């Protein structure tokens, strides 16, 4: 995942072209996500997977082109905080959904 944050230009605060590239990518990804839902061309679970993948890619695009995350030594602590937080949130989300689903099954509330 960290490979995608590599900045080919090396600009730490972005340029007009990098903002425009990021913006165009974001617009395409958003439009495709809306299009997949509107067109009903995939099965419900296929649609859900597709928009989840598109959202993940778009978050990476925003992190790279708009928040200028990179691998520079300057950013080491930023990245460390970021990956700790992402790990924390993943545990929070998966743990909550697993435990609450399991509880609901045993209490037959659904």
């Amino acid at each position: 995942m960290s490979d995608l944050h590599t900045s080919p230009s090396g600009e730490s605060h972005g340029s007009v072209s990098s903002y425009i590239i990021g913006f165009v990518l974001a617009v395409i990804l958003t439009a495709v996500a809306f299009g997949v839902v509107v067109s009903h061309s995939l099965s419900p679970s296929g649609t859900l997977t597709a928009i989840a993948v598109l959202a993940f890619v778009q978050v990476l695009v925003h992190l790279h082109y708009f928040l200028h995350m990179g691998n520079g030594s300057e950013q080491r602590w930023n990245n460390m905080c970021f990956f700790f937080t992402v790990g924390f949130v993943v545990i929070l989300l998966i743990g909550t959904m697993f435990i609450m689903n399991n509880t609901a099954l045993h209490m037959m509330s659904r």
Partner: protein
Amino acid sequence: MAHDTTVQTAGHDEHHHESPVVFGFWVYLMTDCIIFGSLFAVFAVLRNQFNGGPSGHELFELSGLGLETALLLVSSITYGFGMIAAHKNEISKVIMWLGVTFLLGLGFVGLELNEFAHMIHEGAGPDRSAFLSAFFTLVSTHGLHVTCGLIWIVTLIVQMMGTTEIPERMMNKLTCLSLFWHFLDIVWICVFTYVYLASMI
């Protein structure tokens, strides 16, 4: 994926030393990320608890959602242009781009409030079902953040008016707001995907 990542930063950023203020703000954003993570977890648990009330499929409108998303996305790039102007020390351009960003953000908040008022009027307020409680908590927390961002933009515009150059202190404030604004856009990506689009399938 090639691992040619370590060589690129040696030369260019000796002039750009990140301020501890910006790092501190980054840490704040990470805690904010945990708040939104918790609210998304709540929504994920309660998303099918309708209690006989309306579901997301019946409530959400794709056209309004598309417009809100477009406004926020365009406001991201206009703020980016403002930051580029700030690095070139062109204050009038910075104020112009911040003004455009403010109007786009204001449009977003207006649309969202309109949507909320419409839902509450139809009897689908936050007190109707667990699904709607979770929905209003998550989406309005994001809206509240955007509103704070708008107040922040106005504050910085007022502070920059009449000055001729951007001191480092102001640059730090602009950089923090830039992180905040783009971070809110990332949260919105998750909101429109997992809250709105996933309910409309």
